[in-house]
């Protein structure tokens, strides 16, 4: 069963902005899918259409087989949304927000109270249940929106930048939590600008750019496409310069730091051998950028080189 099926989806806003230019996307049940793209790419617009918050211009969307034109109630029942912008009633109490949301999904009050307690505890908000939402910190508000999105136990959970502005400790605990509910069978679609987050959580990646899907593949396959990685070496002793190493583009950043481009067919062994041969002692090594990040930048860069940025090309 497909959790999500999108065909030929377009969206032109009232002001003439064409936010989606015909996207096709399918997400299998049980998948953990990253939806990536630069600012203004159309991620939130696509999510808005899936969740009935934005009217589409053309195309079709089905959630677990429920087409949003024919059976929107069926589609909505399967969905939980954590929006990008805070959309809480700031004067309502934390617990009441979650219980009310359950009520809108038709969950009787007793059961709603039980579930609200479960999810508020999971997201470490139970102690704050009697606070009004305004008194929560930004990260707590995001967690509250997650609890609210889960209270009806949706089969497909969509999170639009849930970890923006969340501290590292909470972010890790959110990751653990999302992995857990994904393991329990919830399909998840996640947008984020932290690419290491996408790399560590998601098994599938879709990248949207300027309203078009430019990548839509399993994560492992996407990462394999990355033929060149840049590694950074920290040296024990300062050097004046490095002679060229055959097959590797090596640059000196400062006397104790070197940078080298390594292609996947060569690997790093040869590079280490060459460095040792020259008597250079490497203290530590890291990737210059997260791998997904590097790929992402290349996709955007290559597009610029090809002159696909109309604004640039036109002038």
């Amino acid at each position, binding site marked *: 069963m497909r959790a999500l099926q999108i065909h030929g989806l377009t969206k032109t*806003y*009232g002001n003439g902005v064409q936010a989606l230019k015909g996207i096709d996307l399918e997400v299998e049940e049980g998948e953990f899918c990253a939806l990536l793209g630069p600012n203004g790419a159309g991620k939130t617009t696509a999510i*808005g259409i899936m*969740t*009935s*918050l*934005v*009217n589409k211009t053309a195309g079709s969307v089905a959630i677990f087989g429920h087409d949003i034109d024919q059976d*929107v*109630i*069926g589609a*909505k*029942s399967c*969905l939980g*949304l954590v*929006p990008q*912008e*805070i*959309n*809480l*009633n*700031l*004067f*309502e109490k934390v617990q009441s927000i979650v219980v*009310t*949301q359950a*009520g*809108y*999904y*038709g*969950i*009787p*009050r007793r059961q709603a109270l039980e579930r609200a307690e479960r999810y508020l505890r999971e997201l470490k908000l139970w102690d704050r249940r009697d606070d009004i939402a305004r008194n929560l910190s930004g990260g707590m508000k995001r967690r509250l929106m997650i609890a*609210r999105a889960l209270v009806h136990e949706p089969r497909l959970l969509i999170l639009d930048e849930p970890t923006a502005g969340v501290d590292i400790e909470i972010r890790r605990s959110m990751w653990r939590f999302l992995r857990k509910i994904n393991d329990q069978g919830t399909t998840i679609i996640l947008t984020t600008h932290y690419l290491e987050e996408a790399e560590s959580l998601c098994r599938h990646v879709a990248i949207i750019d300027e309203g078009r899907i430019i990548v839509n593949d399993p994560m492992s396959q996407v990462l394999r496409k990355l033929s060149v990685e840049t590694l950074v070496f920290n040296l024990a002793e300062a050097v004046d310069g490095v002679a060229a190493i055959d097959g590797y583009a090596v640059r000196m950043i400062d006397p104790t730091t070197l940078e080298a481009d390594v292609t996947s067919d060569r690997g790093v062994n040869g590079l280490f051998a060459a460095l040792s041969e020259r008597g250079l002692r490497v203290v530590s090594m890291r990737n210059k950028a997260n791998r997904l990040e590097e790929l992402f930048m290349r996709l955007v860069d290559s597009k610029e080189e090809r002159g696909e940025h109309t604004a640039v090309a036109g002038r």
Partner: protein
Amino acid sequence: MTRIKQNLVALNTLVLKEYHRIVRIWVQTLVPPAITMSLYFVIFGNLIGSRIGQMDGFGYMQYIAPGLIMMSVITNSYGNVVSSFFGAKFARHIEEMLVSPMPESLILIGHVAGGVVRGLLVGLLVTLIALFFTDLTPVHPWITISVVLLTAVVFALAGFINAVFARKFDDISIIPTFVLTPLTYLGGVFYSISLLPEFWQKVSMANPILYMVNAFRFGILGVSDIPLGRAYLIIFAFIIGLYTLALTLLKRGTGTRE
């Protein structure tokens, strides 16, 4: 079957939420109309009214009491829906309802019910205040109750439509100030239209609020400037028209979806 049960839970949730909102901010929702109406009773009813003499065979205080009750019901049922629904749009928690499987008709009915609750609560409060000044024993209790209830529905619906179109806070006070208040003041709250020259009587007949106020007054005092049947007809026509319009707007996503 389960769908119906779920819808009932959803509607109940929304109505309770609206009710809690009214009670939570009672200083904004219940106190101001009580104060304003007390002033009306003291100044118009007591001080000035004692010089006016009889109106349609009733003391002035007794004559305006039903009008003032209706005026507060109208303002408050309208005001509750317009501020609650616009507030939800503005702070975006309206999305809690829009993403849920709750049908549009229930979103509308729930808000209207909230407006009716506030209208009737305030109406009751004003009635209690009125009882300090005059005697009000409805001659036709069922007419009294049905008219006040249906009128509250009309203006709750109107408030909803106002909120749908509103984009900024100014937009939710324009209609009440420039349309609702003048129509209410000219709608026979303070006088019988038989006092007006014939031409202005005719003009007044175009004001729907006149019918509602007079039908309510007929329920309490047994006198009216207009035929009762026509009043009910107008009220039902407004309910059907406004409900259809509000639901169409909501389904189309006007003012709620991009």
